[in-house]
């Protein structure tokens, strides 16, 4: 569902969100909030080894 996922750092140098592309071709920016459904879904994929989130560049 998510591809090309990567962390984005805030001004404090710490990760503030995850950006990715959806299978539908849309761009998505996901807050690091454990109650956010997209965050839950993307972390589930990471735990299952189906997705890697690149570090902030």
């Amino acid at each position: 569902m998510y591809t090309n996922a990567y962390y984005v750092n805030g001004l404090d140098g710490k990760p503030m969100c995850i950006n990715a592309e959806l299978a539908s071709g849309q761009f998505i920016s996901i807050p690091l909030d454990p109650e956010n459904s997209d965050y839950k879904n993307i972390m589930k994929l990471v735990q299952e080894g189906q997705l890697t989130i690149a570090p902030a560049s």
Partner: protein
Amino acid sequence: MSFAVNGTTGITFNDNTNMGTAASLGPRNRIINGNMLIDQRNAGASVTASTTGSDVYTVDRWSYYVTQASKFTVQQNAGSVTPPAGFTKYLGFTSSSAYTSVSTDLLVGFQWIEGYNVADLNFGTANAKTITVSFWAYSSLTGTFAGSVVGTNGSTFRSYVFTFSLASANTWTYITVTIPGDTTTFSYNTTNGQGLALSFNLGCGSNYQTTAGSWNSSNYYSTSSAQNITATSGATFYITGVQLEVGSVATPYQFNTYSDQLSQCQRYCYRPVGPSAYNWLSGSGGWGSVTNALIGGTFPVQMRTVPSLTTDSSTLSNYAVYATSGGTFSAVTSLSVNSVSGTFNYLLSVGTGSGGTTGTVCYLSQNSQSTYGLYWSAEI
């Protein structure tokens, strides 16, 4: 108007409608957008159910979950049939092929009700309340169809499968199903998570089938004999007027004003809509540098949780930062939800290749008269 009072059905009016319990006097329907009126994401466009393994939203608050891609399409007012009297919209599923489901297949359309909105049902306790589900259904097929009510504590499930019959093809039929409350001890979510799901089977395999009419300690969605519309190419299944309420009697569908219903939906999805190209997609912000702006805004209602931001186009240059001082549009090169975003307000960090003047005011907008929008999602 005359009416009759009965110890079982409550008050019955001379148009055959009922008010079964005292709860009927207040807001009754726990389903949001049960008449399928609001479709912020797709604006009535058909969508192929191509994404597997996660909840994908169609009309507001309604989603599908599939384990096999592209077995059906889903659309507000699919097939353009006349809705039941009093309704203008319905949600339509259309089978794309004749697919025989395997045991592990799960293909359903459903709505998660937020825990806050079903907390009073006392499910999972000895005081669980009886509920009644009612809706209008229409299909090109006839026979027995299935749906279910599902709850979860985050790791395990409870479910109650029900069946209903559609005797005439291509005819709207009013369905009511009364379901006893779940008195088995279980920690249903009663806050802002997954409270109860009301689902409709589209193509479940045997792993998700059980006998209808009792509560189970797993997530079941159908029976072995219910229709899978995905087994018949071109088969249709339409629903509208969906209501889930306390009590053993189905009361008439609770219509809301459009503004109230839109506000209910916007707790879970908010799509800024402007009148024309170049419309603003945010509140105001400021340039922090030549190439970066912090742009904020306020949601129309408090969202369920901090939302994700999804753009219609993956090409970010279809969006721009508009500088009010010079009246220029600078194409967006990066777009991120800032960590200070909340459920009332948000802040975006927006990058551009150039065009900023530090300290001046700007907005996020469409670029080059594109028609691409965006939406915020805090779905369950």
